[in-house]
């Protein structure tokens, strides 16, 4: 079990983060904590993409002069595509968190609380 975990450490760490994020979103009464949970959930996925792009002994994907050396060996470089994708995903994530936080500001101004149970009671009245 322990060997299994240490052999695939990034995956287990990501799985734990996903569960923590999900718990934050589903199990917490405070809307702020739910947004924090969402952020953790998204970060776990970003880490997943980055960890998947890594290669043992590879370096950053910047080609120096290769005149006369033929083609560069792709195994020498980290796969850059997931990093590019994650830049976009981070922007998407920032947009979502930004919208969520602006929702929270509006909700707090309207209700004076961010506790989900109090909010639901408030609405039912």
């Amino acid at each position: 079990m322990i060997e299994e975990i240490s052999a695939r450490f990034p995956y287990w760490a990501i799985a734990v983060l996903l569960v923590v994020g999900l718990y934050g979103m589903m199990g917490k009464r405070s809307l702020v904590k739910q947004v924090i949970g969402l952020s953790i959930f998204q970060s776990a996925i970003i880490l997943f993409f980055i960890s998947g792009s890594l290669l043992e002994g590879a370096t950053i994907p910047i080609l120096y002069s290769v005149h006369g050396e033929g083609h560069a060996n792709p195994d020498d470089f980290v796969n850059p595509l997931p990093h590019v994708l994650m830049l976009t995903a981070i922007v998407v994530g920032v947009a979502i968190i930004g919208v969520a936080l602006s929702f929270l500001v509006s909700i707090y101004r309207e209700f004076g609380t961010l506790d989900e149970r109090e909010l639901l009671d408030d609405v039912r009245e």
Partner: protein
Amino acid sequence: MDPQPQLPVFIVGAPLLFSVIVPVLGRIWRHSAFLLALATVAVAAVASALSLELVLRKEPFSYHLGGWAPPVGIEYVIDEVSAFVCVVITSVSFLVLVSTRRWAEREAGDRPGVFYGLVLLLLAGLTGIVVTGDLFNLFVFLEIASLAAYALVFIGGRKAMLAGFRYLIIGSIGGALYLLGVGFIYFATGTLNMIEARELLEGTPSTRAAQVGAVFIFAGLGLKMALVPMHLWLPDAYEHAPSSVNSLIAPVMTKVAAYAMLRMFLSVFPAGFLSGTVPIADALLILGLIGIVFGSVAAAGQSDIRRMLAYSSISQLAFIAVGIGLGSPLALAAALLHVANHAAMKATLFLAAASVRLRVGLQRTHNLAGLGPRMPLTMGAFAIGSVAMIGIPPTAGFFSKWYMAQAGVDEGQWVVVAVVLFSSLLTAVYLFKVLEQVYLRPAKPEPSAHGDDERDASADAAPRPELAMRPVVERAREAPFDVWLPLVVLAAATVVLGVINVVIMDHVLLPGVS
């Protein structure tokens, strides 16, 4: 080399560009917001229609964004199916925008530019999902559309705030799960292009990574399309959303998520991949069958007309999921036909509800007694929409159900036939309940009998002072011209779609899915 047809970029690009321009111009001249937004949607609709015509005349084509060919660049795939769904989305949105202008003026407050900017952003996201041929690009468009939808739901008042926040959390989980699935597919195949991924998945024995990816993708899209048991966000969001918004997102938003799921079956995962070790097709079929019955039963128990329609949406989306789960070309074509039919039917019903709310201000079905003769066009359109939902020929709803039942027989899945018929009965129960109140019951004499129905104070149900003492329903007049005309057009469209369904099936959908 021929220059590539530039049409697809207008379908997505026009709404995307003007979603930024409209808020700015809307600040300078308020009335420009609506007109510009309408013009933009018209441009997208015309571009979609021309693309469909081009596909039918020649062959499906792909548009390389910025001139970069895949797999380096992003491609937009315009085939029969995507062009058809684009036409449906843009034309339904156009009619809805016209019809809900009065609501938008009231609900968007002093910033109509921002409201219409969000509407255009929503449309850009939805059409982007439909035409893109790239898995990651689909995620980006999915989140663009969702973010616009969250914000639009949120502006509907106190209850809508909570519903909108819940929608945001659950919708973002859906998007994140989809992205996780795309990650697995990418690491299993090394590509993000749908067609290429399919070739690579077909060539190799299916790995565990690809299967896990498929599960995450379907869980994520299932959340977005409100597949039972992942539907909990939908009724609140649809009920409390502003009237100008729910008639827009109910017909198109979840339908596009359903389309994305269908696209996964058509373009990404090879046949057999999803019914082998990971029986996703069977799971969709079973959840769909449960969802059809659950949605109809829950709808029958609602007294608020918008909430009833929301549960009915869950049932109809489950119907589309059943089509995807069956997986035969006929079933997929039936599911796609239902995407179009349901967009027209649900837009009709939600717009009729919004029109009633505009004139009477009430939403509980039992308070609408006697409204039929007062608002003949609105309620007539509602009746046609209801008949189509139940599936009585020659309206559109009948034919998608007919093809689905036929596909069920072909596949030997008799339970599909039984559930489709049974759901028609249940649909009849909850929609006839409304029609009975509206046409057969006399208006309630006491306005105080409205119970817990919060009467919208802004409704204009008192045209002449001498009528002020009479029940609110009897005071109601027909909705204004620009509200009922799109409504009648949509109701007519449900009949026309039914009449020409053979043409659509034979020339557009069946070639598109085979």
